[in-house]
Structures are given as structure tokens and as C-alpha cells.
């Protein structure tokens, strides 16, 4: 049996089948559901580890199934896809543990975990997509699988947020579809190719290619929350914390950012994109998003909303790194795909812990929370300092490479964006840390629950502590061969070596 031809499909199916089985499980089959969730997540992780080892050693993994005449459904493992697959599979395991603890005694858990698994299936599909049509299919599946998770609580606010999310993402999907079809009519192929496949087209098509680029980026920019297409993200904060973590760190916004990387590198090619003159406007949009998101975050009292605007800002570092055009900045952008995920998931886990344990939803309610929940607050502190870019945490590595890449590419203005953004990051994160650690706590918490001798349930506490340690580890051990930085360098070498 040729494992190379089936491995990508097996990885996608590993969570899809789990999700389908969970859908039909009765609500009271708690243990079975936990075993299925954990077993599925671990099995996927083992498969991913195996494939990662293979890709590193030059093995080829590709599943190709006929879809339409002339168009195949292609799942392929390359260096870039593995970066995203490892991130989503690894964080899915932790998010599953967290969600099990978070949704204990909640209704509709089978429905929730069913869609949860579908969501990860779609994300891994997006990561492994070998052509634009496969990417589009999984991208839309992701929209449909995430919608029930956002409206899971069934409140009016949740339904409203769900509607907004659906409308935004459907609009984005529509733009992406139009761009994809147009591209296919021009080029006759949609296969992702290293350094792109459009540079050989006749120059008379260049104006059309610019318009298609705008359509594709706008379509992907909705999920990547580029300003002004970001409106759904802060509203989606009504979703349960594991869903927020999934939206912000593992799946949705990452799928958008990853899609932009794919379009710029493997559809257009970075050099051809630069020659079309589309990279500078993209960099400007990313810079505006970075600053706008940070400014908006400054004014939010709702903790999750503040984190949401922070995501709007932070995800655009990935886009900025790509659009600056240069190997060093690309390393910064790609590595932030992982770093932002690890940092942001830590922050959302912690926000969920504050809400579930003490009923804290607002920054103004966080006074002295570090005394009551020191481990959670310590994890939050590491995540927040990482976001600011304090060395040697994950965010510092990103900003280092982005800054260095900007200087290398002769785009010094990016440094001002980075400095301004870091100042704003400090402006909206440090008051939370100060309130949490140094202010005296209120007489009582909004809605306190007791968890025995632990500050909160262990299933809620362990994931953020692990991800916080990861924030430290990926920064401190950036030069090791198994670090995200090393992998990002490897991808960049492939993209920039003729």
C-alpha cells in the first residue's frame, strides 16, 4: 500500500470520522465522547508527526481525487502546509482538553464536539490543500462548521454574532470563488506551485491579474480580519472560550492569513506579485490593520473583545511579513503564524478561566485576580508580554525578524509600525497585568465557583500553562532545529532559492 498517497487524506479523515460519530452519540455518553475526542486528537497528532518527519526527509505525500473535469481534489504535504497542520493539530489537542473541562455539565455537547471536529477537519484540509479549488472547498466548509459553534449558546447576542459571521464569511467566500474561477479561465490551472504559476502569462493579462489578486485577498482578508473586513471578529466573542480560542489561534483567522500566504507565494509567486505592484498596497493594508486593531483594543473593557481587537492587529503581522518582500521578513511573517497562535490561545484560555471560575468578563473586574488565580494570571502575563514583544518570548522573535526584514528590504517605515504597535500593545495589556497582580481584589467576585484545592478545574488550568510554557520555549529555543523559526527559515529557503 502506498502510504504517501493516503496519508494526507487519513489525517483529514481522522477528525472527520470522529466528528460524525460524536454527532450520533447520546448526550449522556460522556466518557465515550471524551475517549473519542482525545483518541481522535492524539491519533491525528501521531499521523502528523509521522508525516512531518517524512516531509523533513524529502518524502512526498499527495492524495489526488477527481473532482470536476480538469480539476482534482488535491491534498499535499509540503513545508508550508506542515507548519499550519502541526499548529492546528497540536493546539486542537489542548483545546479539546480545555473544551471538555469548560463544557462540563453544559447541554448539547455532542453537537458542539461534532462541529468542533468538523472545524479542525476543515482547517487541516485548508492547510493540506494542493490547489486553489481544494482550498476553497475546505475554506467554505470551515465557515459552515464554525457557525454552529459561534451560536452554540443560543442567546440573541450569539445568534446575531453568528449571522454577522456568516454574512461576512459568505461574502468573502463569494469573492474568493469569483477570483478563483476568473483565474482558472486565464491560466487553466489552480495547482499551488513553488514561486507561483502566473508569471508565464502574457502581459496583457496583468491588469486582470491585479483585479483577481484584489478579489482573492479581499475574500481571504475577511477571515484574516483585515481592516475594514474585520467586523465579525469582535462580535463573535459571545461564543464559548474554546471556540474563541479556535477562531483566533487555530482555525479561522489563521486560515485567512494562511490563504494569503498561499496566494502570494504559490499562486502569484512573490517576485511576480512585487512586479505587479500589489505587495506594497497589501503591506499598507496590513500596517493600517495592525495600528487600527491596537487602537480599538485600547478602549475595550470587555476582556475577550479586547483580545479580539488584539487578534485583528496581530494576525496582520503575518500579512505584513509576506508583503514586505524579502526572505527575512517572510521568516517573521511565517513564524508568527505559529507564535500568534500559541500566544493568543493562552490568552483566551485564561480569559475563559476567569469567566468560568470567578465570573470575570471585564478588565475592570480583574483587580487582584492574580492572588486568587496565580497560575492562570501567570500564564496570561506570559501571553501578554509575548504579544508586546518582550524578549525572549515568542512575539520578540517575530518582531525581530519583521524589523530586520524591513531594513533588509529598504522599507524602514515598517519599523515605525512595529514600534507603534508595541507601544499600543503595552498600552492595552499592561493595565490588565497591573490590575491583576498589584491592585487589591474586590470583596467578592462576580460569580465565584470553588474547585477544591486548585484555583480552577485542572482541565481548564493545564492547557494555558502548557501553552504559556510554549510561548517561552519557542522564543528561548528559537535556534534549535525543531523550532517554528527553523521551520519558517526552511520554507523561506524553498521560496527564495531559484
Amino acid at each position, binding site marked *: 500500500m502506498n502510504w504517501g498517497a493516503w496519508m494526507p487524506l487519513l489525517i483529514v479523515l481522522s477528525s472527520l470520522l470522529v466528528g460524525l460519530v460524536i454527532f450520533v452519540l447520546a448526550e449522556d455518553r460522556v466518557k465515550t465522547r471524551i475517549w473519542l475526542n482525545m483518541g481522535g486528537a492524539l491519533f491525528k497528532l501521531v499521523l502528523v508527526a509521522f508525516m512531518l518527519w517524512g516531509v523533513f526527509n524529502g518524502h512526498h505525500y499527495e492524495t489526488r481525487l477527481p473532482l470536476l473535469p480538469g480539476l482534482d481534489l488535491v491534498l499535499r504535504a509540503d513545508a508550508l502546509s506542515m507548519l499550519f497542520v502541526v499548529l492546528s493539530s497540536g493546539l486542537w489537542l489542548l483545546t479539546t482538553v480545555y473544551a471538555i473541562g469548560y463544557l462540563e455539565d453544559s447541554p448539547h455537547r455532542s453537537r458542539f464536539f461534532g462541529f468542533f471536529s468538523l472545524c479542525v477537519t476543515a482547517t487541516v484540509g485548508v492547510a493540506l490543500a494542493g490547489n486553489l479549488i481544494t482550498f476553497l472547498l475546505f475554506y467554505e466548509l470551515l465557515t459552515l462548521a464554525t457557525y454552529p459553534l459561534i451560536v452554540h449558546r443560543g442567546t440573541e447576542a450569539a445568534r446575531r454574532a453568528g449571522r454577522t459571521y456568516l*454574512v461576512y464569511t459568505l*461574502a468573502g467566500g463569494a469573492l474568493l470563488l469569483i477570483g478563483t474561477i476568473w483565474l482558472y479561465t486565464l491560466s487553466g490551472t489552480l495547482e499551488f506551485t513553488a514561486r507561483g504559476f502566473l508569471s508565464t502569462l502574457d502581459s496583457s493579462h496583468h491588469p486582470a491579474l491585479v483585479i483577481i489578486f484584489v478579489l482573492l485577498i479581499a475574500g481571504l482578508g475577511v477571515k484574516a480580519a483585515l481592516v*475594514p473586513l474585520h467586523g465579525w471578529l469582535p462580535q463573535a466573542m459571545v461564543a464559548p472560550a474554546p471556540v474563541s480560542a479556535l477562531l483566533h489561534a487555530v482555525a479561522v483567522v489563521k486560515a485567512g492569513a494562511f490563504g494569503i500566504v498561499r496566494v502570494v507565494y504559490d499562486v502569484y509567486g512573490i517576485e511576480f506579485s512585487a512586479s505587479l505592484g500589489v505587495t506594497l498596497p497589501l503591506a499598507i493594508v496590513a500596517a493600517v490593520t495592525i495600528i487600527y486593531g491596537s487602537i480599538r483594543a485600547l478602549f475595550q473593557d470587555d476582556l475577550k473583545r479586547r483580545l479580539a481587537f488584539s487578534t485583528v492587529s496581530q494576525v496582520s503581522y503575518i500579512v505584513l511579513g509576506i508583503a514586505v518582500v524579502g526572505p527575512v521578513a517572510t521568516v517573521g511573517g511565517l513564524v508568527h503564524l505559529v507564535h500568534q497562535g500559541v500566544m493568543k490561545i493562552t490568552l483566551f484560555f485564561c480569559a475563559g478561566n476567569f469567566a468560568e471560575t470567578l465570573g470575570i468578563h471585564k478588565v475592570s473586574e480583574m483587580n487582584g485576580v492574580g492572588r486568587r488565580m496565580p497560575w492562570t494570571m501567570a500564564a496570561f502575563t506570559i501571553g501578554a508580554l509575548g504579544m508586546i514583544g*518582550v524578549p525572549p518570548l515568542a512575539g520578540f522573535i517575530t518582531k525581530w525578524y519583521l524589523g530586520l526584514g524591513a531594513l533588509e528590504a529598504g522599507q524602514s517605515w515598517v519599523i515605525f509600525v512595529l514600534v507603534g504597535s508595541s507601544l499600543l500593545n503595552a498600552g492595552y495589556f499592561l493595565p490588565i497585568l497591573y490590575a491583576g497582580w498589584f491592585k487589591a481584589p474586590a470583596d467578592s467576585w462576580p460569580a465565584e465557583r470553588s474547585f477544591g484545592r486548585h484555583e480552577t478545574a485542572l482541565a481548564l488550568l493545564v492547557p494555558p500553562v502548557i501553552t504559556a510554557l510554549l510561548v517561552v520555549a519557542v522564543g528561548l*529555543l528559537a535556534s534549535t532545529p525543531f523550532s517554528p523559526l527553523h521551520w519558517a527559515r526552511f520554507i523561506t529557503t524553498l521560496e527564495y532559492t531559484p
Partner: protein
Amino acid sequence: MNDILSALLLLSVPGLPLLLAFPALRSRLSWSCYFALLPAVILLVLPATVSIDLPWLLFGTTLGLDGTFRWLLEMSVLLWYFAASRLQPLNDPAANNRLISFFLLTLAGSLGTILSTGLVDFFVFSTLMGYGFYGLLVSAGGHIARRGGRGYLVLLILADLALFEGLLIAASTTGDLTFDSVQLAMTQSDSPGLFLVMVLAGFALKAGVWPLHFWLPLVFRSSQPVVALLLPAVPITLAMLGVVRWLPLGEISSPVLGLIIQAISVAAMLYAAIFYVTGTGLKNAQLKTLPVFAIILVTGLFFTAIGTGLSDPAVWDRYGNWVHYFITSLGIGMAVLITVSGWLQAKQHFPATPAKQVEDSSLWFERWPGIIVAWASKTGFNTLPRWRAWWLAKVDRLWLLICALKSVLDASERTLQRWTFAITLFLLLGIAVVFVFLASQNIL
């Protein structure tokens, strides 16, 4: 010395206090402040020059200790033991644990900075030290200390951003970020000016150089004597060390920048001397803040030397070594000054002299400093309430503007969302039309 042993020893000098800082947050570990210094003491007892390469750490780290900085480490260890002995337990156990934890974090950053042999390592450890010291300052409690902490934090962030820019410039000039390589690269660089400015600005902000010294007096009013004791020995001394280690002093000439630095530094020294002699120096109630003026004076002196070195590298070549001795002895010297002034204040050996009496007893030629002081006090912290009211009015107006901006942004996002609904419907309709068209043309 055995490589593994020296690696362990060098790593544990900043590593042990760092590791102890986390359990200290949860339990009462008062002994940990002394125990954390043990690797540093062992390192000092061993006579050999030690160095260790850690290519897997961050961007590749080298820690080491040579003869020049052994003396600084010795002084630091001595001072930290003294500081640990002066640490006063707080009534609230949680606050006390926090205090010890931040003490250990500051210690880790401080010792790591001394052992650094490259810009990145120095930056990382000095940032750790800076945030640790902020925590120490705020943990010590008190409204005034917290105000001081806020001021310190703002300057710390600005300083780190300036140094980060300096680091990027250095990294884009040379791939090797050890002190020697960067100094050589900057000497050979065509445009080292921005690097010099960023590094000097960064470390000047960290050192609280005049006129950015406003947080210093507030630190000295902290309820924890250890905070005041560590202020000159840790953030200020290490900022000075940073200037000396990062910049190619004696190799590079920048007369204009040197002159500007000299002018600011001399103004700082004058300011400190005038205030000390004619102002607060005679008021017992503010005896605790007297070391502030000593700090402004010595930082002014230090930066005058730096300015001179930049103006005339030959002077630095001749006398630059003295700056190392100055930095090394500053911490201990200031610790003695602070301890003695504190002791004098406690014993009340210097009874308060009414300001009016001072003015009346002075001769006319002695009054001119008073006129300068009166002018200076209008811009200094003596008239802070009036200035604060003025600033508050400004901030209030700015806040109204910000609120208006926020409302506009909120409203525009809501409008955008409404439009998105319409656009989505239009797009979906458009796609259907495109599909029908393509199908009719046999393209699909």
C-alpha cells in the same frame, strides 16, 4: 575548568534566581534571596576566566566572565547580599511572596546582564531586570511608589523600543552581535549615527537621566528601603554598563552628538548641585530624597564623560578605563550614601532648618542660586499640583476627543456591517450570473 561545570555554573548564576522566583510566588521562601546568589559566589571563588557558548539559546548566546567584569560581579554580589538582609517582610503574605519573587527576577536579570557578551543577551537580561525592578517597586506598596513605578515603566518601555531599534540597526550591519563585532562594524559603518542615538537614548531613559528623572524621588519615598538601595546599583549602573559595552567609544567620533550630550549632562549636574545645596538638602523631612540628587549628579558626570569620548576619542582612549571603575564602585558608593542618609534621618542628627531662616541668613551673592531654584521649582516637582491640574485639563480635553473618535469608529463599524449584508447578497447574485454565463460559453 571542565566545560560542563562552567556551563552549569554560568547558566545557574542568572538561572537559579529565575527558577526560585516562581515557587517564591506561592510560598514563603525568604532564604531564597541568599541561596540564589550561591552560583555567583562559587563563580567568583574560581579564579579562571570562564565562557560558554549556547547556540541553541535564543539567537545563540554566549555568557562569560573576564577580569574586567569580575570586579563588577563581586560588587554586585556584595550589594545583593546586603539588599537581601535589608528586605523588610510585609504584613500581607501574598504581597510578601510577590516582593521576594520580583527581588529574585531583578537579581536574575542583573547578574545575567553582567555575564552577557552580546547585545541580544544584554538586552534580554536588562529587560528582565527592568520589569523585575518595576514589580519590586510596585510590590513594595504605597501610592507614591506606584506613581514612581508607572513613570519608570513608561520610560522602560520607551527605552526598550529605542534599544530594539538600535539592535536591529546593528543586526542589519553585522551578523555577529557580540559586543566586539558590533563595535567594529559600527566603527567601519558609513552611518552609525542612528545606532548611537538609539543606544544613548535607550540607556539614558533607563538611567533616569535629567530631565527624565521625575520618577526617582518617588522611588526613594517607597516604604521598602531595599528598593532605594537597589535603584542606583541595578537599573542605573547597568544602563551605564550598557553604554560602555554597546558603543565603540574611543573608536568613533561624533562631535555634534558629543556636544549635545555634554550640554545636557552639565545642565543635569548644575540642576542637581543647586537643588542639593540650596533646596531640599537643608530640609530634614526630605532627607530621604537626597540621594536622588546624587544620582542625577553621577549620571550627569557619567554622560559628560561619554559626550567627551564621542567628541574626542583620544581622550576616551586615555581615560576610558576609569569609567569602568566608576561604574563598578557606583553601586556600593550609593548604597553607603543611602544607608547613611537613612540612618541620619532616623537618628535626626540633622534637625530641620526652616527655609525662611536659610533665606534670611544668606548674603545677597548667596541668593542667586535661590532665584534659579525658584525658577526651576516652577518646572520641577515642588509645584506639581498646579502643573498636574494644567495637565489634567489637557488630558481631559484629549480624553473627550478620544471618546468622540471611539464613537465615530463604533458607528462606522456598525454601518459597515449593515453594508456587508447588502454586499453579500449582491455578490451571491453575481456569482450565480457568472456561473450561468460560463456554463453558456461551455467554459465550465
